[in-house]
């Protein structure tokens, strides 16, 4: 039986990568004009399946039908011709090209052998109007905000007359307002007969936008459902394969002695502007101090100053009872400070290095990993295998470049490295940004575990839910200053939100 409303069917898709069965007999279909969400954790095989549909990978087995007819896809060209368009998670745009150049690339219109930029601009403007996707075709893509770049990607597919649109993690990089705008655009598209595959790992989003939801786990389809039949908990359980605790379970904190004290710290950013303007706080052993705030209120610079990556322009800091103002990261690490940086790929890992080496990045020169300046491969290997086991890092071997791991597993490599030696203070900046439910749950548990072992924790996060779930005390940062510090549980979400937006406490 063939359902005539099906525009796309993938039957029995199997794809093997070295060490991983990325897609295992996957079946997936899409009806005309629907939004079909594909939900799954990082590494579940969603992106692999879409890359097969889009012709970037070739499946080992299985067939693909478009409008009821089987097609062979050798390259993206074949998919584009079949009416499939894809907006990749990392945009496939060339920053130094204009919007028009980016859109026409690969499907150029020429006149007498020269590019016909005018005609392209006209087409782009037509599409812009038709779908409410406002862009200026002559603008340079590199100078556009992320939300607009995404619009360019969508226009790119429409320019190629795509009737099936794949959106890979489209909201991962968007602000809430930009995400709202995207949802509006997606509905606009489906009303005009475009069918959309919406890939995500965000549960709330799926429930609000999808017509149908298919959940993938470990390369297999777990099931297909609709928002009406399910809820966040059921979806999370399908995704992870077990009951997931979306709230963090933690006992009362037993704070000990003061481990970190910061007094009137001032820090300048790269441009020389003072973004931290006199911040004072202290952290005691065995408590979590959450620093809440909208991104860009000085948190990045504050953490960099605390970890010795950026000199403070004023103020003092005592760590473990000693004045450690302006000390090097190495000395701070040796004194017992651990740091989970905000940007794990740029500041947390050396992407080209194997997992094993990344796990000794801060201790490689110490025994047993380095003796008389020589690396000790056997000790590094033992360490890596132990940490991979203890921290459940999913990697085919300790010797694959860490860049090949999923975001969640990359973060686990950092967490494993930072928490595996004797520490007194953990500074975690946005530790779960961009991670899937399973990894978030895992990292939250680790942080609470550290606290219960008597380690002081500074948790910086822009996610209010995360701050509220983990912190024992909450400091709210606004424009480079701490507006107020309160005990967790004594304050509502709304109140915190107001302070983060600049309202003064006591008003």
């Amino acid at each position, binding site marked *: 039986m063939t359902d005539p409303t099906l525009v796309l069917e993938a039957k029995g898709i199997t794809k093997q990568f070295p060490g991983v069965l990325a897609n295992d007999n996957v079946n997936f279909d899409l009806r005309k004009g629907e939004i079909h969400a594909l939900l799954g954790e990082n590494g579940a095989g969603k992106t692999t399946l879409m890359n097969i549909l*889009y012709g*970037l*990978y070739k499946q080992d087995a299985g067939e693909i039908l478009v409008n009821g007819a089987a097609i062979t896809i050798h*390259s*993206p*060209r074949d998919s*584009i011709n079949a009416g499939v368009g*894809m907006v*990749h998670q990392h945009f*496939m*745009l*060339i*920053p*130094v*090209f204009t919007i028009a*150049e980016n859109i*026409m*690339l*690969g*499907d*150029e219109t*020429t006149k007498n*052998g*020269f*590019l016909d930029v005018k005609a392209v601009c006209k087409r782009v403007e037509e599409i812009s109007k038709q779908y409410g996707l406002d862009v200026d075709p002559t603008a340079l893509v590199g100078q556009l905000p992320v939300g607009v770049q995404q619009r360019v990607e969508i226009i*790119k597919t429409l320019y190629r007359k795509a009737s099936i649109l794949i959106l890979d993690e489209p909201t991962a990089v968007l602000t809430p307002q930009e995400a709202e705008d995207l949802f509006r655009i997606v509905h606009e598209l489906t009303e005009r007969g475009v069918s959309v595959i919406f890939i995500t790992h965000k549960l709330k989003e799926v429930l609000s936008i999808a017509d149908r939801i298919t959940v993938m786990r470990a390369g297999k389809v777990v099931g297909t459902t609709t928002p009406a039949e399910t809820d966040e908990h059921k979806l999370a359980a399908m995704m992870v394969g077990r009951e997931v605790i979306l709230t963090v379970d933690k006992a009362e904190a037993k704070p000990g002695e003061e481990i970190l004290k910061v007094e009137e710290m001032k820090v300048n950013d790269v441009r020389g502007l003072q973004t931290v303007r006199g911040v004072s706080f202290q952290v005691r052993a065995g408590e979590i101090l959450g620093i809440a705030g909208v991104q860009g209120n000085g948190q990045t610079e504050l953490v960099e100053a605390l970890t010795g990556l950026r000199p403070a322009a004023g103020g003092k800091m005592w760590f473990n009872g000693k004045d450690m103002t302006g000390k090097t990261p190495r000395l701070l690490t040796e004194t017992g400070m651990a740091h989970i940086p905000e940007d794990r790929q740029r500041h947390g890992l050396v992407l080209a290095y194997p997992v094993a080496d990344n796990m000794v990045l801060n201790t490689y020169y110490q025994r047993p990993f380095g003796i008389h300046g020589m690396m000790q491969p056997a000790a590094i290997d033992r360490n890596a295998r132990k940490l991979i086991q203890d921290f459940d890092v999913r990697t085919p071997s300790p010797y694959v470049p860490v860049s090949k791991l999923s975001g969640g597993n990359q973060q686990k490599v950092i967490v494993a490295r930072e928490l595996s030696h004797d520490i007194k203070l953990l500074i975690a900046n946005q530790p779960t940004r961009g991670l899937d439910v399973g990894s978030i749950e895992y990292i939250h548990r680790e942080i609470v575990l550290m606290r219960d072992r008597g380690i002081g924790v500074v948790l910086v996060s822009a996610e209010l839910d995360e701050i509220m779930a983990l912190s024992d005390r909450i400091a709210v940062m606004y424009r480079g200053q701490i507006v107020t510090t309160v005990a967790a549980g004594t304050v509502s979400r709304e109140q915190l939100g107001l302070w983060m937006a600049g309202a003064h406490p006591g008003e």
Partner: protein
Amino acid sequence: MDWKRFLFIALIIVLLFTVVVLVGSAAQKPIVIIASMLATTIAVATPLTLGALSGLYCERAGVVNIGIEGMMLSAAFFGWFGAIYMNTILKLPAMASLLIGLVCALLTGGLMALLHAALSITFKVDQIIGGTVINILAIGITGFLNRQLFFEKGSIFGGNVPHAPGTLPVIHIPIQEAIESVCTSETCFTIARAFGKVFDQRPIVISAILLVIITHFVLFKTRWGLRTRAVGEHPRAADTVGINVIMMRYVNVVIGGMMAGLGGAYFTLESVPSFEPLMTNGRGFIALAAMIFGNWTPFGAWAASLVFGAAQALQINMQVFRDSIPAQWAILQNSYVVGLTPYILTMIILTGVIGKTVSPAADGQPYEK
């Protein structure tokens, strides 16, 4: 390229010209010196211009090419060899021999580039190492064959360097006549005679200038150029819209190699009718510097090549005016000092006095799916 960069280039060229005019003013009219400097500058900038275009095609497509020097050197040799072989052994007329020599030079450049493409695109060898391989290979092959073919007893030329079929002839563009036809004063005729020479250039010099213009249009106004730049900036993005990244890179590198081949032909088929080991003398590297200073644009690269050309023209003219150099400029009588000018300029320019240039984002990175 921004106007500041062009202004900087213009200033240096004016400065170099001024020095020669001041030094030579005792012996010659300034206008004649300027015209002669201009003619020399354009001519000697040719291998640099072509070398820079060679780098441009490769790097815009994302392949770093430091093998321009080697491609030029080997093309210079095989172009010359082809011409002599046709002329001496097959007894073809001089002009036909030279043209076949030219084709040999182009093919040699293209083949060397094909090797570089295979190394860096298919085998993903570090592209600096790939380029170095090309350079060393060229020095070895040309040096060895030069000795074996021409100086070894019993070689095809019988151990004697045969008489070369000459060089490609000057193409006369009747600018002088055009000016003279409207002239009334003697000064006007002097100007006409002086500047008429600027336009009497040989075919490779003229093609280099045409190729700068053509390359500009190809790169920025055509489908091929758009795709080439896309492949050099973000190959994955190009792949997702169905562009064959590997093919684009191969073809562009080979085109680049042929540019270098033409540059090599300039040395032995147009500039002088002979080959000497290492005769490219670092021009390939200066060309690379010119391309970088020109911010990976054809006109920018050409302008930068003209700076180096002017420095070389200065060196040549200093020899002409050597005896009339005033005492306080005595240092300029030392040919070593003057000979250093192009190389010193390279260093100054590359230190980034005029701001940083931006290379294609994926320059030097092999593409892996």
